[in-house]
């Protein structure tokens, strides 16, 4: 048993990659349809949008770039679908320059599916430099922070922005963020001073750091990672890419939990024998040296 454990602890890491790849690929090709449980923090975002009367101003700040697309793009699609279905006046923007094209694509794409007209039903302001300073600027004068929208039209001339002079007239802001500037920036520099309600949609990596803000009511809801996106898709009854990915997510988690348990078991079985380090002297693939590249 100890011999086998020793061999497995020296296993080429590429075997683990293959296991993870299979655990991801098989459920994507043959979905199982595991149930998606709705968490309270996601439901709070849904309920708040449901409570907004038609014509309310909803600002979606897509503060992410293509590196976070798999997690945050499905969230953006779900939220925009919900907002357009509720006939809210939607304002899209981004604080991340590399996300501009993708943000424009998702806002205009979902809007056209609902027959919404740019400038009349929704606006995409695009990118403005400055991060947190843009939020402060929007709080003072939206037209000064964004004199023109992404397409070069003057924001003061857009019918959808009539009566919206600053963030004070915005009913609900959601920041879809993968870091800074993101949800925290919108809270610190926006909500606290200008008084709008704020929700967050974030990558799984930064979600734990935002729970303290949720507990204290500084944000009213939180959609975390692909799981959060799947919950939101389930809530609006529009199952998309996030729900489709949940089976694969569960399968990979099972594999990883199994590997952690097996590795720890084998480690305790062999720690009194020869297993002290798993590095190979030649630095061949699978060694920590290769992994550190």
């Amino acid at each position, binding site marked *: 048993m100890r011999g086998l454990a020793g061999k497995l602890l020296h296993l080429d890491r*590429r075997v683990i*990659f293959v296991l*993870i*790849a299979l655990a*991801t*690929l098989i459920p*994507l*090709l043959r979905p199982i349809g595991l149930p998606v449980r709705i968490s309270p923090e996601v439901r709070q975002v849904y309920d708040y949008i449901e409570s907004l009367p038609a014509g309310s101003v909803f600002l979606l700040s897509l503060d992410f770039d293509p590196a*976070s*697309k*798999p*997690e945050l793009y499905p969230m953006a699609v779900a939220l925009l679908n919900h907002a357009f279905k509720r006939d809210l006046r939607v304002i899209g923007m981004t604080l991340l*320059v*590399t996300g*501009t*094209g993708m943000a424009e694509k998702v806002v205009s794409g979902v809007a056209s599916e609902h027959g919404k007209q740019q400038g009349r039903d929704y606006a995409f302001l*695009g*990118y*403005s*430099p400055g991060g*947190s*300073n843009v939020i*402060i600027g929007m709080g003072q004068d939206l037209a000064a922070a964004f*004199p*023109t929208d992404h397409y070069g039209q003057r924001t003061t001339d857009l019918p959808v922005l009539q009566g919206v002079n600053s963030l004070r007239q915005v009913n609900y802001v959601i920041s879809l963020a993968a870091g800074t500037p993101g949800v*925290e920036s919108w*809270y*610190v*520099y926006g909500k*606290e*001073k200008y008084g709008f309600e704020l929700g967050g949609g974030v*990558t*799984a*990596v930064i*979600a*734990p750091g935002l729970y*303290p803000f949720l*507990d*204290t*009511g*500084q944000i009213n809801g939180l959609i*975390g*990672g*692909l*799981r959060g996106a799947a919950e939101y898709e389930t809530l609006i009854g529009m199952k998309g*890419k996030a729900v*489709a*990915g949940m089976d*694969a*997510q569960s399968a*990979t*988690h099972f594999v*990883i939990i199994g590997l952690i348990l097996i590795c720890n078991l084998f480690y305790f079985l062999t720690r009194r024998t020869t297993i002290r380090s798993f590095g190979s002297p030649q630095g061949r*693939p699978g060694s920590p040296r*290769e992994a550190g*590249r």
Partner: protein
Amino acid sequence: MAPSVLIGAWVAAGLTLFMFSFLYKDNPFFRFGEHLYVGISMGYTIVRIYYDVMVKSLYTPVAQEGKWWFLIAALLGLLILTRFIPKVSWLSRISFAVIVGFGSGVAIPRIISSNILQQVQGTLRPILNAGQSSFGMAQFNALLILIGVITVLIYFFFSIEHKGAIQVAARIGIYFLMINFGAGFGYTVMGRMSLLIGRFDDLILFASRDYGYASLVLLGLIAFGLFLWERRSSALSDPDQDRRAAGSDPHAEG
């Protein structure tokens, strides 16, 4: 299907597979994709900055709307570039002074209010309200959070020796930190797996007939390329090894 969509799918599938090829080992496909990513990101950023900053936020307000005071900000921006000219690099300090002064002035009060005062208030409020209602799950959670906050703060309090009650509290603080690290790691794994699922999702889509089996064709080509690269690498390294083994290393001095 539009040719641009088809070309985009082939490029996307190819570059994804280039990056995944690193899981086998570091190789020229991966390095090509990596360098391309850095270059394209930088190029895209420069183009967007040009239109969104230089044109929209500087040229248009100054040239078309007569807002000449925007030139002051532009001048401060240009002064930063004097860092590259040693004789006048001191001028850049003016810009940095403005940035630091403005940034600190804006950030410090807001951060203190949001991240300290309101967090402390949020931590204590449920405890203070506990007397008004029966002790339920909400109050228990609040108490747990309060214990966590205090014990972790004690763990990071190094001015007194961790002995007796302080040691016990610090040890409890370590457990809270460990749970936090575990939750963070779990979420990180979930995030990374989501990224993998996203790429696999696209690869599966691009493997369909509509896209000309892009993923499958490119996977075969990359695998063949890696095979040729491995053969070439081993062919190049073998003679050296043979010579070293015979004591005639061509790189050896003398």
